[in-house]
């Protein structure tokens, strides 16, 4: 994982590393779409194509001992946190080598060693535990932060309200990252939220809020550093409203009948975080292709790894119910 050199600024080398990570996530998820269509992947899958800068910007800022909880759209977060693509892909194939040993699946990626407290298939379901993890850090006097990813749609559920309210009341070191892609499945923000400025949500708790443009990985990184710093220093939790774009369907296979015609094409044209970073870096075509080949090979290898993985025995299902 990239190390922070100076707060609020990232070296060119790191930015290149970010590009590589974002492209890896992109290619990984495109592969997921492809393998799903090929009928190889069971379960419900949600890719975050278009949202890679959020995953990379946020996760690169996390300290080694920090923890986070994710959502149904978790591949990017998990990869950006450093879980090997082989183990993520193996999970999607339901193999024992998967990061959840095949028990979880795409919506339940865990990597406890790396502070991944788990992706959640219940919208908002992971938020209270982030407050609680942060409470544990505070009680034990540890300089760690717990961070939550969630979507704009998740801000409508009571769990969100209770988790953030408690976090602020107790001034725990937590950061709440709203990946605001303006859609909850097929439901546009206008149909699911009575406000237009997402950061207004934080006002109900008097919580520090940061709004950031999420297609720019540098901005996300800088904002996350500020948020982590605030939380870590004992000043309480932070709400991050991250404007981002889902450049694909809600789930893999989604025909997106609900999307206004042309929206997707236009967004792909204007809101691709990888294009943006590439321009920022002034990356030559061959340089990009080199990186692309590299990450594509990693992704291909992850599929090979996953397919060659071990299927659980049926009776393995009886394990891990109780400690």
């Amino acid at each position: 994982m990239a190390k922070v050199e100076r707060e609020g600024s990232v070296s060119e080398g790191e930015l290149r590393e970010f590009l590589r990570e974002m492209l890896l996530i992109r290619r990984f998820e495109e592969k997921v779409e492809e393998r799903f269509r090929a009928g190889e992947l069971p379960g419900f899958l949600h890719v975050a194509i278009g949202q890679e800068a959020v995953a990379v910007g946020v996760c690169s800022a996390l300290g080694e001992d920090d923890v986070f909880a994710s959502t149904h759209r978790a591949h990017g977060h998990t990869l950006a946190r450093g879980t090997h693509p082989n183990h993520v892909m193996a999970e999607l194939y339901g193999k024992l080598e998967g990061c959840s040993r095949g028990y979880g699946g795409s919506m339940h990626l865990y990597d406890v060693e790396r502070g991944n407290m788990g992706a959640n298939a219940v919208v908002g379901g992971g938020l209270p535990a982030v407050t609680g993890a942060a409470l544990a850090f505070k009680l034990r006097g540890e300089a760690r932060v717990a961070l939550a990813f969630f979507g704009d749609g998740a801000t409508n559920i009571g769990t969100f309200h209770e988790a953030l309210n408690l976090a602020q009341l107790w001034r725990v070191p937590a950061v709440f990252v709203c990946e605001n892609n303006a859609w909850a499945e097929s439901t546009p923000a206008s149909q699911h939220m009575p406000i237009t400025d997402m950061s207004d949500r934080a006002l109900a708790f008097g919580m520090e809020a940061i709004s950031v443009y999420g297609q720019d990985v540098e901005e996300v990184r800088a904002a996350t550093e500020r948020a982590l710093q605030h939380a870590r220093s004992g000043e309480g939790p932070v709400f991050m409203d991250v404007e981002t774009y889902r450049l694909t369907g809600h789930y893999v296979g989604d025909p997106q009948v609900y999307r206004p015609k042309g929206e997707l094409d236009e967004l792909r044209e204007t809101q691709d975080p990888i294009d943006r970073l590439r321009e920022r870096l002034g990356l030559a075509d061959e340089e990009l292709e080199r990186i692309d080949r590299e990450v594509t090979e990693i992704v291909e290898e992850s599929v090979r790894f996953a397919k060659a993985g071990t299927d659980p025995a049926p009776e393995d299902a009886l394990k891990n119910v109780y400690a």
Partner: protein
Amino acid sequence: MPELSYREAVRDALSRAMRADEDVFVMGEDIAEMGGSMGVTQGMLAEFGADRVRNTPISEMGIVGAGIGAAMQGMRPVVEIMYEDFLTLSLEQIVNQAAKHRYMSGGQLKVPITIRTQGGAGWSPGAQHAQQLEAWLVHVPGLKVVFASTPADVRGLLWSSIYDDNPVIFFEHRTLYGLKEEVPDELEPIPLGQARVHREGTDVTVVATGRLVHESLAAAQEAETHGLSVEVVDPRTLQPLDERALVESVQKTNRCVVAHEAVTRMGFGAEVAAVVQYAAFDWLDAPIERVGARFTPIPFAPVMEEFVVPHANDVLAAILRTVGKDVDGG
């Protein structure tokens, strides 16, 4: 007679009720433009408009509660909870509010809400999208609970649920949506509280719900090759429960298997077993067998998922045990 899928049958009941009656409306997450996560309400937005096919935010507690409030004011809302795992989020409203307002008010009110939901394993949806939780609701006085297993049943029962003056929790099983059946042109309401005998038999009674009705029918077929005549009964309404139908069947066959996809422990089968052993004690020639999911969350990997939830062979094995046979010949 038109052929309808289980999915279309649900839609048909909803649409007919909405055509017949301004007080009926549906609401839920992604039910409008997208037509619901299982496609059940597809096309209904165009016919009924956004007020009556109401797309909602992710607020399971809020939308159930809003349905309750509208029902208390005389509407007949049908609220969809996308996955029954999310009933956990609205249970306060269902159990403490919908089920009790009438009682706590001494009969002044009624709460004619229907809450549709679906669940089940089968496509590796994982531990939080595959539970079968109907047993919880059966434990709550004031609620009615329906679990339909065929297109004709789902249509007739949903209609009756909508027009029932009590809160009804209406369970659908995900893997049944594609199941097709010929149904009459006219919708025939099916009274709540009536079991259906799917198949008559004389040796063993299988009481089954949801997906397990079909697994049980397959098992019954297979049991014939063992020379056994198996009766398959689907209670359809779990509350009120048609106890008499179950008991009479067992009094005829003297043997009973209960089968559902939910976890066996504290599952609906426990209640059936308790009722049947009580009422048919002197008739029983063998212990009542329970078939249900193993006591684990639903795992992701298909091979484990398959192992955890019951299938026809599990029902068959239970049938054979009641007559003292082992599956592997015995």
